[in-house]
């Protein structure tokens, strides 16, 4: 019997289940290594060489080098593990979360101060909320480029 995975129809959201965990095992374990100050220094000195010490896929390594957290998550990463990369870079959880939306840091912070992102239109794929695939990336500049504002 197939396992029940009812969470695949939520826009802009990847649930970290056994399948994602299997895919992202080494990416996430690499992130755990950054909890040691000495490893953070080694990583910063030569990121590529440090990553090559781990049995990660090339896509995972490229996603880390680009600091593209959406790509990291698609490749099996989980935000609490990926946060160790942000910590190594001196970035906060808010900066990391905001980076996945396409908004500028100020735009994301202002959205949170104004009460956060609305759930309306963002419950299921196929609705028209701001987290839906056809409205990415977010932020004023991207919306203007698409002719939305």
């Amino acid at each position, binding site marked *: 019997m197939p396992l029940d995975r*009812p*969470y695949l129809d*939520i*826009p*802009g*959201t*990847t*649930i*970290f*289940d*056994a399948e994602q*965990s299997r895919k992202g*095992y080494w990416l*996430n*374990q690499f*992130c*755990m290594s*950054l*909890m*040691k*100050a000495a490893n*953070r220094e080694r990583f910063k000195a030569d990121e590529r060489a440090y990553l090559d010490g781990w049995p990660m896929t090339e896509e995972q390594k490229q996603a880390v080098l680009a600091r593209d*957290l*959406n790509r990291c*998550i698609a490749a099996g990463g*989980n*935000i*609490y*593990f990926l*946060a*160790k990369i*942000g*910590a*190594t870079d001196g970035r*906060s*959880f*808010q900066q*990391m*979360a*905001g980076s*996945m*939306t*396409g908004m500028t840091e100020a735009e*994301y912070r202002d*959205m*949170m*101060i104004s*009460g*956060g*992102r*609305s*759930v309306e239109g*963002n*419950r*299921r794929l196929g609705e028209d909320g701001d*987290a839906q*695939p056809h409205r*990415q*990336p*977010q932020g004023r500049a991207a919306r203007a480029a698409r002719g939305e504002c």
Partner: protein
Amino acid sequence: MARITASVYTSHVPAIGAALDLGKDHEPYWQKVFAGYEFSRQWLKASKPDVIFLVYNDHANAFSLELIPTFAIGTAAAYAIADEGWGPRPVPEVKGHPELASHIAHSVIQDDFDLTIVNRMDVDHGLTVPLSLMCGRLDPARDAWPCPVIPFAVNVVQYPVPSGRRCFELGRAIRKAVENYDQPLNVQVWGTGGMSHQLQGPRAGLINAAWDNRFLDRLVAEPAALAATPHIEYVREAGSEGIELVMWLIARGAMSDVALSAAGGATGTQARAPRVVHRFYHVPASNTAVGHLILESA
């Protein structure tokens, strides 16, 4: 006999700890968060427990992908503060209560809840931020937390995570265990995490104040019915990290009005609903809606 006198519920946003550690707590942005805990700090001084049983989740600090316990109880004498990548928070070491923790593990496992017993574990912001919110800033060398703490870590990171019903029933088993402990200890159970938040993907920043406040209402008034809420509703309505709220049901299940009788059934209407002594809700702290409740046994 030990008894559970109160339960405390609070978000455990890491940025709250950072704001306190960096002395930003008087900035207007953070003052709005800390103001909601001024009453709570006075209340905790006046109602100081002998032990806090603190339900939280580890955020890939004590547990990597090598080992993922669904429920882990700390039975150690002390716990070091985790380096989550920014360096350890400058807060006092956490002292445990090995005797009561071992007693609870023994009782709850015999009641069919398969806990993982942990004798060495660093504790992260999930445990220390609630303590900071309730105790204020403490000096890591000169000060101490007000009492021993039993860390109880729940996996809400990798699915499947435990159901709300399982958490609620576990809370009831914990109450039974505490009431069978033969020392006259005053125990509080704290449930932490939430409320609505999402830290990942294009949907990051999701907040649902209406859903959160309904959760608070129902947690007080009809916790057993609330415990039947499926995971998918938490994720859809309160964001992928809103799933942490299942942990609040462990603390709520430990209150007297929903206690199990000696025969194992519900006690019915003997005990009255708990008294709400404090309730607070604020958006935002970083990416997250902050919710907080204090319930006392009536």
